């Protein structure tokens, strides 16, 4: 039995972060992917995670979406534990019912879009609101059409994903995630599978979200310029830990750690 005494049942107070990783550890066999990660993200904050591959960036998002279980530590969302649930005055690992009740705060967009191929763009967006949130079809349709309008995909609402380009699919996927009205949005390398000429149409949509919506966002990306433009904070991951973090101008302009400097200069050379 792990000692859970260091983890409160709830986070409270004025500055409670929207997302809080507390000593989160994840390993596959002997390979440690995340090493006692502590990370707070405030409500409305846009945080980008950068770093070399294998540094645990994507794992952070996948654990927050409950696609992977954590080995130890606790993740809190909106002050309440996500990976654990209170039982007898202590935190115990969450069961599926608890995950189901907490997961609705989080939405995610994937590198490979993962739209449902047997549904049209509109049906993809309506699926969650109708099936999971229990909205009427009419309500879900209104909400979905509004969001497809927002991402500039309303003209293609009756197309199946196989008829859409990568950039278009990703925009529909963003609308689908937003239709669930999450508090936290996760973007997992959403432009990595796209052709260079359509990356802009997806980054513009995300840019719009940052300026117009009070969403908390966590993004893993290789688009350094984009991350620099829109993020409130950049976290540089190395070896399953945050090696360095700060405002984009500090981290990109004046990196303190040697590994950050190496990574950034390697990335710049590649461009």
């Amino acid at each position, binding site marked *: 039995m792990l000692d859970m005494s260091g983890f409160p049942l709830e986070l409270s107070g004025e500055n409670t972060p929207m997302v809080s990783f507390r000593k989160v550890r994840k390993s596959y066999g002997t390979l440690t992917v995340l090493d006692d990660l502590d990370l707070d993200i405030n409500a409305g904050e846009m945080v980008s995670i950068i770093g070399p591959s294998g540094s645990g960036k994507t794992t952070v998002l996948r654990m927050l*979406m*409950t*696609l992977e279980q954590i080995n130890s530590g606790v993740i809190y969302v909106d002050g309440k534990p996500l990976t654990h649930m209170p039982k007898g005055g202590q935190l115990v690992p969450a069961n*599926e019912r608890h995950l*189901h009740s907490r*997961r*609705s705060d*989080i*939405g*995610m967009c*994937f590198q*490979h879009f*993962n*739209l*449902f*191929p*047997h*549904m*049209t763009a509109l049906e993809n967006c309506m*699926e*969650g609101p109708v*099936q*999971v949130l229990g909205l009427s079809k009419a309500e879900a349709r209104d909400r979905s059409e509004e969001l497809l309008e927002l991402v500039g995909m309303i003209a293609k609402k009756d197309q*199946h*994903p*196989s*008829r859409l380009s990568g950039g278009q699919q990703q925009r529909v996927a963003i609308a*689908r*995630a937003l239709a*669930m009205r999450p508090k936290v949005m996760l973007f997992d390398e959403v432009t990595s599978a796209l052709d260079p000429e359509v990356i802009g149409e997806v980054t513009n949509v995300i840019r719009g979200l940052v300026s117009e919506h009070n969403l908390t966002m966590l993004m893993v990306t290789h688009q350094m310029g984009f991350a620099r433009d829109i993020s409130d904070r950049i976290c540089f991951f190395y070896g399953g830990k945050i090696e360095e973090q700060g405002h984009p101008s500090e981290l990109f302009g004046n990196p303190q750690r040697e590994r950050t400097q190496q990574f950034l200069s390697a990335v710049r050379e590649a461009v």
Partner: protein
Amino acid sequence: MFDWKWEFAWEILPRLVVATGNTLLAAGAGYAIALVLGLFLAIAQRSPSRALTFVVRELVEFIRSTPLLLQIFFVFYVGPQFGIRLSPWMSGMIAIGLHYACYLSEVYRGGIDSVPKGQWEAAIALNMTTLQKYCRVIIPQAIPSALSGMGNYLVGIFKDTPMLSVIGVAELIHTANAIGSEHYRFLEPYTMVGILFLAISLPAAGLIRLMEGRVRRKMGLK
């Protein structure tokens, strides 16, 4: 040498047509049982419970590795020793339905495995329950790739219905046997049974292929 009697053939045709109805009914009912049960067997093998997965896996292997005829005998003749007394029809449907459910569960399993992992993850990201994941996301995508296998077993179950004759279900072979022993003529009844089977199997296989294409197009899959 070639001693075909048209008159006799016409005379027995009505009985064979009625028997064809029974054969189709047996195949249809058995297939319906197999379709539903097979899906449960396939999904049970993906359950998080190791024990359930193991038991179902072994059951499927066991049934697939023993003859259908034995299973039919078992349900019909051994059942009563345990107080389970079933009509020939009931026993036959249970045996053939269960037998084909095991084969179909493998087809479904293949179909389910062919659905990319990202689809499961997208379903989790939308906070779907397990039931919603299967009904709304996974099964609709698994069916198109399972269709050809499902079609093969539909024809297969149709051709296996004669096994039910051994416990007295009045399907085609059973009726042809009866006609043969009443009139001491087997050429006409057996030939006609063969033609009847062919006349149903061939178009059915074609129809299934046609349906496969339509379903895939309708689902927006290529």
